[in-house]
């Protein structure tokens, strides 16, 4: 790459350009001791932007800078402008970016550039495969997940697949088709991956209702069973409990609708409980689970608070006390606040 190539100042094909050194005052603060290569490339880049040249050699120059400093947002910007001005193949650019993205997964610019390319290329489906591959490297990468959500929201909306000439460019339903299976495979790998749970929420609840998902009652039931099964496998997984709360809230379903499910998770294991009867609606905690689950106790207290009678509140207070003094002591002051708050509300209602 750029390390093995000669400096721009030594290349005959750049001899027509007068390099522009960086201007720095006499006493700079936090100066960076640049490498010779970086200094050389940016000298030519400053010259190029000043001249306004947009040509194929600028693509080579900006690539060299980006590889040395992927956070150089001006090099990215100028590169994109040059791609457009020279009618370069954006498909080739995307291919190059596949390699650069994997090297610099945590750099914002890498993903921003990709969005720009896709907005013009309008071929979202292969991107989903690419993202899947990248998430394999880093399963919780925020940029990668955000990019997937952007892609689906941008290209997956009603009518988004129709171009200016009224032609369908890609199959909209096809774009969404594998999404739930994809989330499921991510959660099978790691049920505590909050990014995957968030993505599931986005797919099912966050972006309109798609073909095949119109029966919301059925979708709700399906999700309820899904999240309960996952809680039963890992009862101390806050991401799954948050998802459960999320779907109840977004369907305006009272928390108490799941009390039967929650209850066994709030107590120490009951060795006498029969595991023979399989109740799909209320899967019991898996064998060997660490009980009681803090999230379950918290959930049950919220159910009781929502019900709101004096005896409910008193039971909730007992649960909060157990959180404060034994199960979740780091949040002791928060649980004490919940106790005070509930007492106040009770008093006010009398």
């Amino acid at each position, binding site marked *: 790459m750029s390390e093995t190539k000669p400096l721009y100042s030594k290349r005959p094909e750049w001899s027509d350009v007068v390099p522009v050194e*960086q201007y720095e005052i006499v*006493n700079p603060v936090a100066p*960076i001791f640049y490498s010779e290569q970086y200094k050389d490339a940016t000298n030519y880049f*400053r010259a190029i932007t000043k001249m306004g040249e947009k040509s194929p050699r600028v693509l080579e120059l900006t690539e060299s800078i980006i590889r040395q400093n992927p956070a150089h*947002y001006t090099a990215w910007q*100028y590169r994109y402008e040059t791609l457009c001005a020279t009618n370069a193949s954006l498909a080739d650019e995307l291919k190059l970016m596949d390699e650069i993205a994997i090297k610099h997964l945590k750099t914002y610019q890498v993903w921003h550039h990709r969005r720009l390319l896709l907005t013009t290329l309008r071929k979202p489906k292969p991107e989903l495969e690419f993202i899947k591959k990248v998430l394999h490297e880093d399963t919780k990468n925020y940029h990668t997940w955000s990019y997937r959500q952007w892609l689906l929201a941008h290209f997956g909306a009603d009518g988004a697949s129709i171009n200016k000439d009224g032609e369908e460019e890609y199959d909209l339903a096809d774009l969404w088709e594998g999404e739930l299976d994809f989330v499921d495979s991510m959660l099978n790998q790691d049920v505590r991956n*909050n990014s995957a749970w968030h993505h599931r929420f986005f797919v099912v609840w966050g972006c309109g209702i798609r073909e095949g998902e119109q029966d919301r009652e059925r979708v709700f039931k399906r999700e309820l069973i899904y999240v309960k099964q996952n809680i039963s496998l890992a009862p101390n997984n806050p991401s799954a409990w948050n998802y459960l709360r999320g779907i109840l809230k977004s369907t305006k379903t009272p928390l108490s609708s799941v009390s039967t499910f929650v209850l066994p998770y709030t107590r120490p294991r009951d060795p006498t409980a029969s595991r023979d009867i399989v109740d799909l609606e209320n899967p019991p905690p898996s064998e060997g689970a660490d009980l009681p689950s803090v999230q379950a106790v918290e959930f049950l207290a919220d159910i009781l608070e929502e019900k709101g009678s004096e005896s409910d509140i008193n039971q909730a207070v007992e649960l909060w006390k157990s959180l404060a003094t034994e199960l979740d002591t780091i949040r002791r002051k*928060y649980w004490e606040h919940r106790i005070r708050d509930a007492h106040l509300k009770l008093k006010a209602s009398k």
Partner: protein
Amino acid sequence: MNTTLPALSRIGHANHCKRCLTGLPVSQTDMDAQRLALVFYCIGGLDLLGMIQDIPEVDRRAWKDWIWAQFTNGPSGSGFRPSPFMTGQATTDDLVVDQTTAYDAPHIIMTYTALLSLAILRDDFSQLNRQGVVEFIRRSQNDDGSFSTVPGRNESDLRTLYCAFAISSMLNDWSGIDIAKALRFVSSCRTYEGGYGQSPFCEAQGEVVALSQMSSRINLAIGGTTYIAVASLSLASSAMGGKEILTPEEKEETIHWLVSKQAVTGGFCGRTGKEADACYCFWCGAALKILGAGKFVDRYSMVEFLGRCQFKYGGIAKAPGESADPYHTYLSLAAISMYPPALDEGSVSPKVKQSWTSFSPLDPVLNAREETVDWIRRHVPQPSHR
């Protein structure tokens, strides 16, 4: 109470900041386009440690001069650029130092960090082109209410919105912002968990992953998406005469989300189910403070965690065993400033106690010492707006 709390190595952390201000190794080349933010974390760190007054006047002068040298008046308004990374030296045919090209433009996040740094250095802001900055903010706002880092670039998220709000608050001039539109963008970033994501549909997080983040390098961000949202709402609320923006239920839900980010190790994590990281002690801690819920933070476990994040050669790392950087150093010190632990002299030595408690109060909304914020209020706005 545990007696294993080590002293906060104040001198070591100050030296870390000073070292970075002197120069950065080649491995930090990716700081080139965000150098001013790094400078802010170093100067800010020295300020939180109460050591800025010990810096010789000539150095403080030089720091101010360098920051002002990044101020530029361009076609899209005025503000600070990250560094002279795109600024060319005068060539033979130029009479003066080459002035701004469109590619040497101000950057909204850098403008926020520059104003804070200059206030820490007690600059009088007589060089500030206030109208130009307001113009810059106006041109940075997008149709969806969000803000671009640099006008015309559609790279935007909640961070830039916060910086636009913070700058307007510092100037006490909101004429560059369509507040209602901006607030709609903020609420579109709210998630089912009760936190906020970087942009609509995104997962809630305590921290914005850096502008650039490489495991072995410095991770820089003006972040904490949920913090950013909460602080922005607080700034907007003040601008609108104290109007409450969140409903009581939303507020409770966000408090719950934030409180649940304190891990058993004492540190805070940025997203549900992730490892604790020193910087989230600030992002989550400050958001809680703004929401009036600072009392829920377990201070002792938090500082115990931060104590373990100290790097043996100075500076604070994101987690125990990692190497330090100015970003985590500053944010950890800011977290301690908000939550100095109540230490019992029976269990720690007076020296240890003093090391953790000699901090002055921090304003969680602008992320600066209260004294610095007071200086901002008196010097940054146009005289007629003070």
